[in-house]
């Protein structure tokens, strides 16, 4: 009797991830988001025709970690670059992977217009409520009262305004077909996030238009907490402000069975 007869493989590292260890801080859920995208691309057998567009921010090195083609867009311009790639190569699966500093601030114009045009691309938006890469400055998604390195007394909405709820905003656009928000703070929500990623990619494969998955993520280093405390902080503070849910599901997308 061989070992294979006695035990079954429950989980192994997805083939769409390279063998390179990530540069992310311990516990950073960027890694979970990477893993889920890689798992879904493996399951859909799309690795050979996927092109990713990396953003600027912590996720700038995404092209080192995924084992398929990537290009690196200027800050915030990933949806514009993805538009060009998808229009020239319509048979490819084109995804962007952007953080909140990239998509919700400098790149807000690009993503809004890509969605309004109904570009057949998929945007993965990682929301961790600050600018992670540059040292935890206040981002458009920073919560009211949240302390960051540029809002040391907490975000004051009178002078610094309110956080941007990107999923709600994009969902108002006619061209967007699938816009949802999920969280990566516990196993159940990670599984729901994976389903959403699958549905977003199915939306694109079927040519149904723009899809976006917003993923609430932790930033333990810049929040000044341990990874486990960060998950609790996300659940207690971020989810009430950024409610999880489906903000736009086109009837044609709702019919997809996976």
């Amino acid at each position: 009797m061989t070992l294979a007869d006695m035990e079954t493989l429950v989980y192994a590292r997805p083939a769409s991830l390279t063998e390179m260890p990530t540069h992310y801080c311990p516990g950073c859920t960027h890694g979970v988001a990477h893993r889920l995208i890689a798992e879904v691309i493996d399951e859909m057998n799309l690795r050979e025709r996927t092109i990713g567009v990396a953003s600027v921010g912590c996720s700038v090195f995404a092209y080192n970690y995924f084992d398929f083609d990537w290009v690196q867009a200027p800050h915030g311009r990933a949806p514009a670059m993805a538009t060009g790639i998808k229009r020239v190569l319509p048979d490819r699966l084109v995804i962007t992977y952007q953080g909140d500093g990239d998509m919700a601030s400098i790149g807000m114009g690009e993503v809004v217009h890509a969605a309004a045009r109904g570009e057949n691309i998929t945007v993965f938006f990682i929301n961790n409520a600050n600018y992670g890469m540059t040292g935890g400055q206040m981002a458009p998604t920073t919560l009211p009262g949240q302390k960051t390195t540029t809002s040391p007394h907490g975000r004051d909405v009178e002078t610094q305004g309110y956080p941007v709820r990107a999923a709600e905003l994009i969902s108002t656009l006619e061209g967007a077909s699938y816009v949802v928000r999920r969280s990566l703070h516990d196993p159940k929500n990670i599984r729901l996030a994976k389903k959403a990623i699958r549905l977003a990619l199915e939306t694109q494969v079927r040519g149904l238009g723009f899809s976006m998955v917003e993923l609430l993520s932790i930033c333990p280093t810049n929040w000044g907490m341990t990874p486990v405390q960060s998950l609790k902080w996300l659940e207690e503070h971020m989810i009430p402000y950024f409610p999880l849910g489906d903000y736009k599901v086109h009837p044609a997308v709702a019919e997809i069975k996976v």
Partner: protein
Amino acid sequence: MPPKGRIVVNDLYCKGCELCVAACPQEVMGLDMSRITTKGYHPATLIKEGCTGCGVCAVVCPEAAITVYREVVRPRVAAAA
């Protein structure tokens, strides 16, 4: 009897973040304080018996460092027939 499982943690990727330790439903995971990886972290490991191979540690692992195996329980078809 609950199913038996085991995990293999790849030292190349594990950064000792302890998300798997906190998520493990059987509470059988911990950091291996006797070892340090080349990146300088104490890697996660099984610290006691009782792993069921449920795979929750792999679901929360940000580094995809964990491979999970579960023992196959053969249905006793022959005995029933």
